[in-house]
């Protein structure tokens, strides 16, 4: 101590220098983050790339094989494989051709060995045609006919004329579908409510009572009027159909067959080999528009997913609306009111464990409790006539409301845990300051604790919504359907129908990707649906994050 000589501190362990700087930890932590980021971006990148390119028009290649077969289609994949031919194993490359014309070829795709190709070309006039039913068609237009009269001969002329005639036909087709869905639907609902009125009168006053007889008479009366109205609608749709009928586009397929395509069965057609970049963009936008705004066709493998978007958003929002107040109130009691005893600790542990229960169990619970017990009771009390008249439960089966409640239950632990954390992070000094001003417990919670904890609570809600929006398993039990075109909100009284079954994007992924007869054909669509689902969840989350950052600036600003 007395020495003036400069002293250097001796290191007690050779590792001290290393751990002091934390060099290994830097690499370890950085590496972990790198892995996580790489995997997440990889997955997201795959979804975005595959999902976004589905609707981009790809050139149609005509390929002649050594055995004389001619194929026309989009090259959708290439790969190198080792084949075991007569000369022993050797590597070859091959390509996957999307040939379509399912009714002729019996498949949507075909692998072609590059070595077996004798010639390939890109026919200028080759067209891809999306049909209302039967899937896609690939071929070269020959002529456009109206009945037996040839209106335009030759690929170029026929195509030009087709483009001129087709939009009007599509417009009339949409009008026919609207009449069928909306106006016929309205008549059917009138009939149904008359039938329900009769049943109600019978249940209330007996089958032979004057009220029941009158109701039955009114029902018959209405049935007669509905029949007249139906005939009028038939006339209107026939009028709309007549000018469209007879228009046919004759095309030749790659194997030389001639196929007649009625124009009113064609949804969209394009000639990818002739399209300019802008033209391709037009087709791309049009197909996205159909995908986002239309109903599905052909067992969900074509058309749009509008009802599923609707169902997903509605389900997630209702779930959030239910789970947020419930979870926050429960967490408030647990953190602010309950005594810190073993019972509170046990409840807390139980809630944490609930987060680990498989979601299908929640589905089973939702089916058993919400649908059968709650819904069954509601049906008995309020919807007895419907139960008797159609033999169909109203609330006693899966539906949007029950699915939302099931998901709310599923995400409740997340919200409670996050809220509790947020409440615990509110400094005690703030609470004391409030009490010292003479505030009561609830005043302190409402004016000080909750505003301060709100950003943290929103974080929990974001997590809950992300988890809920991606669930499939419980939904299968409580009301999601492969096809459910009637939206839960529409123009029919009482306008909101929370009991209706619904479609959901996550279920659609499962259905299209794994339940459809030709999974390969549907694969591009699966990527697109996934992209859409991720985008919707991201949009919901961004809204919540934006809200949170606004609140944070207001309530938790830092001071230095």
């Amino acid at each position: 101590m007395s020495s003036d000589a400069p002293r250097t501190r001796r290191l007690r362990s050779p590792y001290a220098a290393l751990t002091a700087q934390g060099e290994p930890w830097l690499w370890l932590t950085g590496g972990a983050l790198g892995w996580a980021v790489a995997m997440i971006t990889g997955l997201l990148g795959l979804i975005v790339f595959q999902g976004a390119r589905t609707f981009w028009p790809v050139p149609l290649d005509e390929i002649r094989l050594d055995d004389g077969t001619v194929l026309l289609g989009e090259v959708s994949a290439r790969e190198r494989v080792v084949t075991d031919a007569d000369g022993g194993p050797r590597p070859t490359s091959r390509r996957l051709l999307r040939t379509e014309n399912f009714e002729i070829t019996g498949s949507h795709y075909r692998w072609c060995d590059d070595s077996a190709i004798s010639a390939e070309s890109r026919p200028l006039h080759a067209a891809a045609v999306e049909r209302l039913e039967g899937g896609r068609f690939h071929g070269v237009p020959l002529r456009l006919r109206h009945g037996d009269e040839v209106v335009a001969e030759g690929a170029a002329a026929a195509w030009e004329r087709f483009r001129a005639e087709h939009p009007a036909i599509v417009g009339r087709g949409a009008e026919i579908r609207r009449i069928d869905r909306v106006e016929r639907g309205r008549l059917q609902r009138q009939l149904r409510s008359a039938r329900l009125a009769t049943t109600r009168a019978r249940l209330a006053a007996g089958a032979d009572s004057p009220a029941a007889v009158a109701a039955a008479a009114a029902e018959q009366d209405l049935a007669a009027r509905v029949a007249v109205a139906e005939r009028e609608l038939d006339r209107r749709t026939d009028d709309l159909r007549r000018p469209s009928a007879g228009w046919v586009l004759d095309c030749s397929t790659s194997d030389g067959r001639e196929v007649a395509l009625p124009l009113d069965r064609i949804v969209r057609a394009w000639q990818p080999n002739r399209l300019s970049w802008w033209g391709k963009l037009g087709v791309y936008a049009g197909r996205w528009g159909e995908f986002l705004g239309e109903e599905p066709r052909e067992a969900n493998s074509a058309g749009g997913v509008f009802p599923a978007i609707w169902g997903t958003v509605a389900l997630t929002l209702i779930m959030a609306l239910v789970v947020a107040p419930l979870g926050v109130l429960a967490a408030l009691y647990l953190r602010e009111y309950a005594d810190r005893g073993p019972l509170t600790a046990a409840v807390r542990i139980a809630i944490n464990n609930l987060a680990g229960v498989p979601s299908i169990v929640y589905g089973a619970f939702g089916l058993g409790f919400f649908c059968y017990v709650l819904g069954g009771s509601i049906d008995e009390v309020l919807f007895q006539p419907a139960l008797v008249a159609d033999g169909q439960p109203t609330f006693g089966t899966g539906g949007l409301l029950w699915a939302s409640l099931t998901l709310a239950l599923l995400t409740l632990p997340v919200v409670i845990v996050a809220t509790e954390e947020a409440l615990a992070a509110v400094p005690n000094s703030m609470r004391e300051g409030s009490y010292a001003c003479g505030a009561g417990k609830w005043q302190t919670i409402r004016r000080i604790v909750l505003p301060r904890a709100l950003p943290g609570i929103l974080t929990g809600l974001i997590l809950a919504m992300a988890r809920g929006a991606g669930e499939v398993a419980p939904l299968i039990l409580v009301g999601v359907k492969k096809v459910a075109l009637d939206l839960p909100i529409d123009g029919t009284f009482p306008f909101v129908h929370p009991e209706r079954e619904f479609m959901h994007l996550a279920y659609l992924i499962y259905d299209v990707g794994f339940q459809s007869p030709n999974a390969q054909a549907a694969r591009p669509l699966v990527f697109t649906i996934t992209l859409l689902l991720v985008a919707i969840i991201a949009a919901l989350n961004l809204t919540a994050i934006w809200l949170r950052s606004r609140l944070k600036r207001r309530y938790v600003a830092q001071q230095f």
Partner: protein
Amino acid sequence: MPTPSDSLPVAASLAPPALAARPADDRLAAVAAGRDVPSEVHRQVLDQAPVLEIDRFNLWYGAKQALHAITMPIPHARVTALVGPSGCGKSTLLRSVNRLNDLVQNVRTTGDMRLRGESIYDPRMDVIELRKRMGMVFQKPNPFPMSIYENVVYALRIDGENRRSVLDEVCETSLRGAALWDEVKDRLGESALGLSGGQQQRLCIARAIAAEPEVLLLDEPCSALDPIATGKVEDLIQELRGTYSVLIVTHNMQQASRTSDYTAFMYLGRLIEYGPTTDIFTKPILRETEAYVTGRFG
């Protein structure tokens, strides 16, 4: 922060040997040894009309006793300073007056306090009403997560006062009183959490005086303030004397002598000496008090 047991040897070693030999000097040692010693309360204090009477008040945090039989009257409309080394229980005593210690787990008390003759620790006492009659400024600034304006008028808001004119006026007079008005008058709508530490503390002072409490409890209100703001807060305390009864904790002896009428010296949870400020600082009964207030120990 040193615990009392840590500070004991330091105190003993710092006490000059001449003092240590005298019998009166054994008091602090006796306290440290856990023996009861009587408090020296000057007669002038007892002559005053009290607003608050602390009567043989004991407080335990769990098994640890933090306050030992404190008996002291707080004179009405006067400023009373609490001084003593860190950890001696000044904040605890202050928090006991408005029963904030009720919120702490495992706190047990015996004895009583009376506000204008009313028992504070009576089970029938409405604690919320009691706290409304007092204002408190904490050792660490604790602004609420809301605007500056709402912070100041918080006590009025929870009483259901929503008339803009009343709130505006209270806000301005309170902020002026806390010497903060000029700095924040153009940003009353901004978050209070964006203020500096010293500004936050003055905001808390404004909040405490906004509801015109009978008793003002100040726990080291100036510890985070610069000399100018400290001077303004001391001016405010001078203005309040005569109408409000103020109980102020401070580590600054000059501040205690400048602002207070009476001073109490506490040590390890006990009241050692309590009397008029001039007497405590110039001719205390005990040498230990003199040693502490002149900075020779503690």
